[in-house]
């Protein structure tokens, strides 16, 4: 039976370059001497650290706890010693740092206690919490916490569960190899997801340039004896592996930007995610490793099973990088991000390390003006008019860009790929989007500030009124009292009040003076704590630092402005 497939608009066919990395089986990686595990790896909040420098951790021990309801946990990938919990450069174009746990492996690779669950007998909410704490996130690159997507829509069930094995980006083969070698276990994960979502049918979409993967998955399905699961070969065309495009190809449904796909009766997961759900539920293993393709400018492109936190250069060394290597790209050549350094860690989002050189990925020819040829529009899988978006982004006309659906752009890069004028179109969209987000943040902050300011003014008004009322009441009472007391002290009431007023003021000032004096003394004697039991050379070092601090502090301290300034 041949399934009816649908088409999505546009798309391109870059050279796939997938053959070389699929010749050898998935390989293991020797333990590095240092693992750097960023706490913030998935879409959503920043998990809080659960360990401190000096702690010993087991493999699979939770080191970052999910905070808020859009976050997922992070675990130690091997047993060892926590060296530090400090900011480290993250695998992101910005080159910024993020709070990371740095672990020195002890070489034993010892698992902690693992608790499994039986998904058939566990209530769905508990299962989701379990998966959150197991740190399972989408491994296709979007790293969206999976437990959040494992909720069926309003009806409590789902029509189609789409499993994404399309892997349309050139060079990347980790999903391909996963399906070839681990199809059976992956299928167990899929069955668990199917159970959680109450999905009627499961469609596993695989681009037809991976016949072995299709065969392996089909064999696994046949072996499992399950019905309603089908591995579907889909035409190879980038970006068929985009979640929206794959859903469209397999079901004909178009999920608009900003809508949940469950509202349309479908949900989509990556094959890698399915495998890690299997590991989490059936083996009790949290997400601490993933498959990574190392390809590009290396002698032996290959797939590795890599611990999260492994420095990338440690991994790439195994594949034999060539001498002219000058960059690592995380992801594929179409959507990958260029990395700021070679020793950034492998994270949950790392599906591929594309090793690059100037010869391999030459800079595009000089940018020319847009000639409105419409090539980009023909290639855009989101049916956008990229050159209009480009025009508005370039002139920073963000309102118009949004009107032309800037946020429906999935940044797939097809438009830049085909543009005969070599315009870095996607860069313009990324710029516009982050500008718009920044403005929204600013606007929110400004609105909040306005509200707080108005509230404060309001409160001060009210306090003034209340004070005036109280004073008036008091004065009236005094007057009454005075009147009642007769002529005993006719002037006292009226004189005392103004005279008494400065008194508390003066008292307050004196208090402040005293406190300031104390503070000054404190500041002067401010000695660093925890310095009692230190070795002499450390103390010498501290003294040294103190001396430097003094020098630095002097010029700043001397022109101390008068207090009333």
């Amino acid at each position, binding site marked *: 039976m041949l399934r009816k497939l649908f088409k999505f608009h546009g798309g391109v066919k870059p050279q796939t370059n997938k053959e070389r990395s699929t010749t050898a089986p998935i390989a293991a990686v020797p333990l590095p001497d240092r693992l750097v595990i960023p706490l913030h790896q998935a879409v959503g909040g920043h998990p809080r650290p659960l360990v401190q420098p000096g702690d010993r951790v087991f493999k699979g021990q939770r080191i970052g706890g999910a905070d808020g309801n859009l976050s997922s946990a992070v675990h130690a990938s091997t047993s060892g010693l926590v060296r530090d919990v400090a900011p480290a450069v993250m695998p992101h174009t910005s080159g910024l740092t993020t709070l990371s746990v740095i672990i020195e492996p002890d070489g034993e690779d010892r698992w902690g206690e693992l608790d499994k669950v039986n998904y058939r007998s566990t209530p769905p909410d508990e299962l989701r919490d379990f998966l959150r704490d197991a740190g399972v996130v989408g491994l296709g690159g979007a790293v969206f916490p999976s437990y959040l997507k494992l909720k069926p829509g309003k009806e409590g069930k789902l029509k189609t569960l789409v499993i994404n094995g399309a892997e349309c980006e050139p060079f990347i083969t980790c999903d391909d190899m996963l399906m070839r070698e681990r199809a059976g276990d992956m299928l167990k994960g899929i069955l668990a997801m199917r159970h959680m979502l109450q999905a009627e049918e499961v469609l596993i979409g695989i681009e037809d340039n991976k016949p072995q993967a299709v065969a392996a998955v089909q064999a696994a399905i046949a072996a499992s004896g399950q019905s309603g699961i089908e591995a579907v070969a889909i035409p190879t065309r980038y970006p068929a592996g985009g979640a929206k495009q794959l859903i469209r190809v397999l079901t004909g449904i178009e999920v608009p930007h900003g809508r949940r796909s469950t509202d349309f009766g479908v949900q989509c997961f990556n094959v890698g995610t399915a495998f890690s759900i299997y590991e989490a539920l059936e083996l009790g293993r949290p997400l601490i490793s993933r498959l990574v393709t190392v390809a590009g400018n290396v002698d032996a492109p290959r797939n590795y099973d890599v611990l999260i936190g492994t420095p990338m250069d440690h991994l790439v060394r195994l594949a034999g990088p060539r001498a002219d290597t000058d960059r690592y790209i995380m992801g594929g050549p179409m959507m990958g991000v260029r990395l700021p350094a070679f020793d950034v860690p492998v994270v949950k989002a790392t599906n591929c390390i594309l090793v690059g050189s100037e010869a391999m990925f030459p800079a595009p020819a000089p940018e020319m003006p847009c000639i409105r040829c419409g090539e980009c529009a023909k290639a855009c899988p989101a049916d956008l008019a990229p050159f209009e978006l480009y025009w508005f982004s370039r002139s920073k006309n963000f309102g118009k860009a949004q009107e032309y659906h800037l946020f429906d752009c999935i940044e797939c890069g097809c438009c830049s790929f085909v543009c005969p004028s070599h315009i870095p179109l996607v860069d313009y969209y990324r710029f516009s989007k982050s500008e718009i987000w920044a403005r929204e943040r600013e606007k929110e902050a400004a609105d909040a500030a306005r509200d707080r300011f108005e*509230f404060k003014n309001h409160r001060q008004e009210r306090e003034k009124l209340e004070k005036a009322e109280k004073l008036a009441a008091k004065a009236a009472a005094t007057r009454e009292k005075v009147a009642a007391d007769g002529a005993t002290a006719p002037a006292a009431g009226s004189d005392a009040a103004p005279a008494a007023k400065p008194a508390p003021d003066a008292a307050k000032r004196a208090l402040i003076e005293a406190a300031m004096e104390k503070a000054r003394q404190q500041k002067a004697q401010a000695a660093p704590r925890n310095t009692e039991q230190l070795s002499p050379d450390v103390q010498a070092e501290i003294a040294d630092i103190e001396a430097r601090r003094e020098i630095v502090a002097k010029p700043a301290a001397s022109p101390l402005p008068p207090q009333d300034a």
Partner: protein
Amino acid sequence: MFTALFVMTGIALVLGAGLGFAAIKFKVEGDPLVDKIDAILPQTQCGQCGFPGCRPYATAIAGGEAEINQCPPGGEEGIRKLADLLGREFKPLSEEHGVEKPKSVAIIDENTCIGCTLCIQACPVDAIVGAAKQMHTIVAAECTGCELCLAPCPVDCITMEPIAETVDTWKWRYPVFQIAPAALGTARQEA
């Protein structure tokens, strides 16, 4: 004579009531222009513009009593937006009102703070928490960076810290319109 007085009072009352009613009935509902201007101003509430807050400045601009280039936190972009909104000519930021600075938040040195509450009173947005004689802290998310708390502090324990860029606030740069191929650095050099 009393009749005349009566009639006069009566007329006065009726007219007064009429006027009063009209005042309520035809009350001008806030000036939308002021709202629009206020929406552009950064709401730092720092008073550098010479007005006690952003809204008074907005009112003054709308009333033609103030120039559009007096708000340093809003910076050049703010002035441009005001110029667009009001159809006025763009002017560079007036120097007497200050200079544009990177966005900062105030930090209280908690070891030195004496708990005098002066800063709490100065803060226009209630971003400082603390009680008398207790150490005070600034809620960074609510601080607008107006610097109004610096001067009142008797022990000078408040400093302004520029807000560091994080992954969540990092922005893609405007792509350079390149005619010559860009100079190519290695990944490591750029790191």
